[in-house]
């Protein structure tokens, strides 16, 4: 299904981490090696100019996927293929991180932070052209060219996230991985950043892989949504289809638990249970320990992703 319309294709991606105790402990305490399967057989494509969101709770592997796609971790198995970009070479991916306080070097001036990728990739010849490009980038993200001379601590959280975005755009990427870009921000500032990201996507034709735990933000940003649970995609569909007809019980649980401002569900009985440890995932369908509809078969058989009627995919024995 390789197609030139897809910016990135991810095929059966698996990442295993070795979380064993140190060698001496293993020898003395006779403990076996332990591995954590953070991401298992994850397959998805992101069409050019579109946004795919990965959602799930902490530990579901969504951030690991982000790091695999940007090459910060090598995959254990599987392949990630980027489509050719504007210059014919594979598209370049860049990342926007969650915490704008931790992802900017406090000793560097903003101008140098943004100029680093330009200098590194020799995208402009000469300092004058680089400085002009930095000013242009700062203006694009809604800051002033004068801000290049200031240090990160002089900016608020929202402004710092704008600087992160300017830095990510500096290498002229066509694909951006955004790992919880607004979850460290206040809501009124979150709206500014989300609006900026939508505008940049329209102007520059960017493709986003958007990682978030916040379904209301995801609904605003994404064309398609993939829901992850314990390292696997359990359901994937176009945003409107997923909200209109969630077929996996976990997706339903997530949709049910997000507080809705306009129609608060005050008296609903909260669903019980917590995600199991990814170190020791349950057999069969990983969700059966919390699933209200689970039957005996769910404990034995791991459901495969099967097509939904609307072109999405769902991994549930009962949805078939």
């Amino acid at each position, binding site marked *: 299904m390789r197609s030139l319309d897809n910016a990135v294709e991810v095929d059966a991606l698996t990442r295993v981490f070795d979380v064993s105790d140190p060698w001496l402990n293993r020898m003395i305490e006779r403990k076996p090696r332990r591995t954590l399967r953070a991401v298992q057989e994850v397959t998805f494509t992101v069409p050019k100019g579109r946004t795919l969101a990965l959602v799930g709770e902490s530990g579901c592997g969504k951030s690991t996927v982000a790091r695999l796609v940007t090459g910060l971790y090598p995959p254990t198995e599987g392949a990630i293929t980027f489509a050719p970009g504007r210059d014919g070479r594979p598209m370049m991916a860049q990342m926007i991180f969650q915490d704008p306080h931790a992802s900017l070097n406090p000793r560097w001036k903003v101008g140098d932070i943004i100029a680093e990728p330009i200098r590194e990739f020799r995208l402009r010849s000469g300092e004058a052209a680089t400085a002009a490009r930095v000013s242009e980038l700062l203006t694009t993200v809604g800051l002033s060219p004068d801000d290049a001379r200031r240090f990160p601590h002089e900016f608020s959280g929202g402004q710092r996230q704008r600087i992160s975005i300017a830095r990510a755009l500096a290498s002229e990427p066509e694909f951006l991985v955004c790992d919880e870009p607004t979850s460290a921000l206040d809501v009124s500032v979150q709206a500014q950043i989300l609006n900026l990201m939508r505008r940049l996507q329209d102007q520059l034709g960017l493709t986003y892989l958007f990682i978030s735990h916040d379904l209301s933000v995801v609904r605003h940003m994404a064309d398609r949504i993939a829901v992850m649970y314990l390292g696997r995609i359990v359901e994937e569909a176009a945003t*409107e289809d997923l909200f209109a007809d969630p077929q996996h019980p976990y997706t339903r649980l*997530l949709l049910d638990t997000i507080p809705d401002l306009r129609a608060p569900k005050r008296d609903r009985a909260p669903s019980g249970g917590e995600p199991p440890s990814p170190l020791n995932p349950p057999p069969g369908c990983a969700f059966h320990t919390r699933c209200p509809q689970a039957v005996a078969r769910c404990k034995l058989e791991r459901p495969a992703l099967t097509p939904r009627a609307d072109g999405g995919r769902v991994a549930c024995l009962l949805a078939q």
Partner: protein
Amino acid sequence: MTDPVLEIRDLTVEFPTRRGTLTALDAVSLSIRPGEILGVVGESGAGKSMTGMAVLGLLEPPGRVAGGEIRIAGQRTDGLSEREMAQVRGRTVGAIFQDPLTSLNPLFSIGRQLVETIRLHSPLDRRAARTRAIELLKQVGIPGADERIDHYPHQFSGGMRQRVVIALALAGNPRLIIADEPTTALDVSIQAQITALLRRICKEQGAGVMLVTHDMGVIAETADRVAVMYAGRLVEIGPVDEVLRAPKHPYTRGLMGSIPALGARVERLAQIDGAMPRLNAIPPGCAFAPRCPQATAACALTKPRLGPAGAACILLEGEAA
């Protein structure tokens, strides 16, 4: 009409610094009745946590209460000595903080921490205190409480740990519970469990709860009334339904518009441009005036007071009369 468990009148908190005195809370007034959950929302630095800390008597020096009064269950607590305040904390007021990992001592089993807290506030002996501890753990919904009581904090998940912290806060049977971002460190599905637990405990025990959070969703699902703070001032207060459905203050309106809705997707979110002023640069009139789309010349000069309509905005003063 029962007496409020918490009454704050014109509370002002100041931080004297070398470059002048910063006003972190500016004449904040609110009250909480027994069995009521008051949500306090605002952006970082708006003073919502500061309000909770002032009530608990835990302001970081050089911060100090510079004016106004705090009454907990009828007793005036601002100006109490540290020793007297320690008597009030735990017994009359319980506290739940954001990160359950830092509010529990990792070196002691949760049973030991609970028993210590219970015995500090009541004359029970060790055995009776342990029975009471198991009771508390059951009450906050920890399965297998008689076994789990001997476990250490790291053996619990985040949600379960927060339940333990709630059990600790309940140990002294407090009349008032200050919950500062109790669900922020938790996943959404766990968050719903904890807010439901808070509501249940508040109704069962008749305790008043001050729920400090930045998350409007949590407020919508948990609180009875809500107080909106901006730059150290209370800008709007009222029943949750009214404030969320028909916000009066321009800041609250902007805030509500900037939250992506679940129901429908819009092309562009309403945004409030700019950022909240820093404490050393709060404008003389209305603190929101520089960002307010409806601001008039008068807004920059007159500091608005919280009117009978429940909002501090001079543009609304005509309407309320």
